[in-house]
């Protein structure tokens, strides 16, 4: 058993490499906690309730996109409040959430998703 130290060192190196994702997340703490949800100042409520918007806003936007572009519709009636809204990312959504960094990118960066909305669409210019 003269190789005991070599084997132990090898095992440690192996464990360190294999567990890299675990300890890297612990070491680089900060990026590990989800970003705080920012509530737009001045706006009372969103198109749908918070839980729905957090979980399924992308589905809503996809639906809006198809209905506006392909079916020529323009208004959306909220399921939760019954109010009607214009189906527009840059007009309706960004009226209350004007800052793309705060309301889109922070969370998307954390979740590691890369929506391509902004490849074409633009943030409305600041008033």
């Amino acid at each position, binding site marked *: 058993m003269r190789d005991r130290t070599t084997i132990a060192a090898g095992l440690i190196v192996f464990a360190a490499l294999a567990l890299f994702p675990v300890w890297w997340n612990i070491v680089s703490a900060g990026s590990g906690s989800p970003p705080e949800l920012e509530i737009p100042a001045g706006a009372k409520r969103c198109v749908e309730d918070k839980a729905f918007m957090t979980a399924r806003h992308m589905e809503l936007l996809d639906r809006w996109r198809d209905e506006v*572009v*392909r079916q*020529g519709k323009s208004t959306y009636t909220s399921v939760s409040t019954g109010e009607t809204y214009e189906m527009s990312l840059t007009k309706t959504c960004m009226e209350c959430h004007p800052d793309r960094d705060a309301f889109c990118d922070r969370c998307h960066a954390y979740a590691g998703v890369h929506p391509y909305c902004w490849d*074409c669409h633009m943030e409305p210019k600041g008033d």
Partner: protein
Amino acid sequence: MGETRRGFLKKAGYAALGLGCGLPLFGAAALGERRARPRTPAKQLGLVIDVRKCMDGRVARAAIEACHSEHNVPFISDPLEEVKWVWTEPFERAFPDQAHGRAPEFLRENPVLVLCNHCSDPPCVRVCPTKATWKRRSDGVVMMDMHRCIGCRYCMAACPYGARSFNWRDPRAHLTDVRAEYPTRTAGVVEKCTFCDERLREGREPACVEAVRCVPGADGAMTFGDVSDPESEASRLLRAKFTICRRVELGTGPNVFYIV
């Protein structure tokens, strides 16, 4: 009396023959039914362009400028990569079947304003594999869904008017003044005129028509309207004046008309 083997085979043969002759008829009837299904849209928006009133270069410039700035169409000077929604063509290229050597000089020498013809039977729509382009039932506009375009360029090959442009590179690099209200495109999608569907939604007329209206002396150079409605201004013009269309012999049914 029992059925003989010979008799049975005979009857089976006749039955097969009868079916063989009858089925194509049924098939044709079914096909005819499919064809006869109303494919014509509820209305058909069209444009009547008065070539004489567009001879002043300012008219074409105003139309192109208004359209391209409104829709963030990039300016790329290389003709192989250029993007255009409305542009000018020499008469003999716009109307290759009409341009003869004795045509009036004003026709031969002045470029014609051309754009997507929003055809009644658009070949681009037939070939699109993703339905990113389609003929809108409500008003006959040949629409584009940039979200769905995969950039295969079949539509460009199919369009006999060259009305479609492909984004070979990121168009934002070629835009000096980006208008935030209208999206740009990305590299890898095809784009074209949509008769300003975003304006039609608000009850406004296309940007080119509106811009040309403001050019002094160009009154009536472009008339936009429902060409299927006999009461519309465009229809009235079409009845009153002799008009030509680009490449009618191809059967695409263009809806941009030229008063010559």
